[in-house]
């Protein structure tokens, strides 16, 4: 998907939606304020059906608040939010049955076993089973899918942090949701668990057609998982596009380092080939080392966040408070 990154400076006016199915999530002008402190100041984005969208941003940028509004757990101060065609604040139980939420569990259900808990929670979904989406997800199958078969009959209190997170993911999936929300799903995962989780997300999106919105701090994860990345900073979306498109967008996206006469030089450029050619023509054999590094998503992210966080009016506002 080659989405063009956009940098909205103000809330876009409501445009007629693109042809095709309705987006799974549609957010326009979402604002959230606690007293005088504004956490979200006009957030706009869509999640199309079957799309995996990653919400990135520094701590306190409003990621969790955004997700909680979409889950219907929190009322926004202003703006229109549509999740699977309904306002989450008024979403009924039929709507709730189509949505999966992966929560950060802590110490709930210590005496239950994963198998018993999943089978119990799954029971709530039986009335919502449809011919093309049988609910709930078969417990044995789900346990195998998240890699918990061996621990299925152990007390949850005895599971390690990583296993517990797998259980959290399984709980979010038990109702075979059409739309899944994950708030930092891989916090506390070891590399193997992380890879397994990424495979699972791909499978969900490819085989089940599940639309997924997740937040993360891990840029590599965002790059690997997301069809589209949203960067949330300072209460607004400052970038929206695929990882590749975002990376291209940032000026000076590549870095050339060289050593001449034992001295180090660094230069940022977009035009790698002409620059390196000139460099070689000018200095020839004097160059003893040359390294070209293309900017990755991390550089892009840092650049974006810095650009938008260091806007002068923000600093004034900070001082005034």
């Amino acid at each position: 998907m080659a989405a063009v990154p956009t940098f909205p400076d103000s809330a876009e006016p409501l445009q007629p939606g693109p042809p095709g199915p309705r987006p799974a999530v549609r957010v326009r002008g979402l604002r959230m304020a606690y007293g005088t402190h504004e956490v979200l100041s006009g957030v706009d984005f869509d999640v199309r059906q079957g799309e995996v969208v990653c919400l990135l941003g520094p701590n306190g940028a409003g990621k969790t608040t955004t997700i909680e509004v979409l889950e219907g757990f929190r009322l926004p101060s202003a703006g229109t939010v549509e999740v699977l065609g309904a306002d989450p604040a008024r979403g009924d139980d039929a709507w709730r049955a189509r949505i999966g939420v992966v929560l950060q569990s802590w110490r709930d259900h210590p005496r239950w076993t994963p198998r018993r808990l999943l089978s119990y929670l799954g029971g709530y979904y039986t009335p919502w089973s449809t011919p093309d989406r049988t609910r709930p997800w078969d417990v044995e199958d789900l346990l195998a899918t998240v890699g918990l078969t061996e621990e299925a009959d152990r007390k949850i209190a005895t599971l390690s942090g990583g296993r517990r997170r797998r259980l959290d993911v399984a709980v979010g999936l038990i109702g075979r949701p059409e739309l899944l929300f994950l708030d930092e799903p891989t916090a506390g995962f070891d590399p193997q668990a992380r890879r397994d989780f990424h495979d699972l997300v791909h499978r969900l999106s490819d085989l089940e057609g599940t639309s997924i919105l997740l937040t993360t701090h891990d840029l590599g994860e965002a790059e690997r998982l997301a069809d589209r990345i949203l960067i949330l900073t300072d209460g607004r979306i400052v970038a929206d596009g695929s990882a590749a498109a975002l990376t291209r967008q940032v000026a000076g996206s590549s870095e050339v380092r060289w050593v001449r006469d034992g001295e180090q030089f660094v230069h940022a450029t977009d035009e790698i080939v002409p620059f390196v050619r000139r460099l070689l023509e000018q200095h020839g054999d004097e160059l003893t080392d040359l390294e070209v590094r293309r900017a990755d998503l991390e550089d892009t992210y840092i650049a974006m966040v810095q650009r938008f966080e260091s806007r002068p009016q923000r600093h004034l506002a900070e001082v005034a408070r």
Partner: protein
Amino acid sequence: MSASRQAVRQGLRRGWTEFVQSLRSAQDQGFYLFIGVVTLAVLWFNRDNEVGETGLLYPTFALPSILGGLVTFGLVIGPGYSLAMEREDGTLLRHKALPHGMEGYVTGQLTLQSLTLLPSLLVVLVPSLLLFDGVMPGGAGSWLAVLGLIVLGMLATMPWGMVLGSVVPGVQKMGTWGMLPVLLITAISGIFVPIQAMWGWVQAVAQVFPVYWIGLGLRSAFLPPEAVVGELGDSWRTGPMLLVLGAWAVAGLLVAPRVLRRMARRQSGSTVEAARETALQWVR
């Protein structure tokens, strides 16, 4: 409404599962044992003392009162702690994310707390019947009355336990918000000591709360008719007793759903996270 019925069924299943898990847990067995041993010790050491001018032995007077105290204590503090705990650890939030989840959760909580009452009453009642003579002179009719009164007592107290668990700021505050007031009220309600031993105004305060009335009701079912001379006004006051407990039950059933709904509306991942932070930081 089949989805709603399914949720209630899930709640019953949840309550039963948690009850069985509790019976199998050494921690909870220890708790039941503690209640049983302490109560029986109090009764045993006072087994030859006569209460006032009734001519009754202490265990005969105190056993029905203590059962009443256990009903109140278990059904106010039990759900209070459970709810406060499960608000913090995310159990409630999980149910909020389910279709009809809150209905299931509340059903589960009511089922569990009702079932839990059984072992905590039995550990006191069964040994007492074996150890002390004449604690239950009545027959099947009296037992039926006991059962009915316990159910009425549950209705009068359990909703308030749910309210307590919904409004208490956190588990750490349950001591001051829950235990302390309930223990104080129990202490003045004629459970261990006849209420006449209190000052007049304390007696008046005690009679506002359901504890005294549940104790009185159970004494009227357990004790022989002539024991009525040990009560205030030489009467079992059955009418006022049913009225006061009924009023607490109706008020509780009206208030609790509203408070629960309000509390549930405020639950989110951030509140659970904040509770976790608080729990990790006891000293501040």
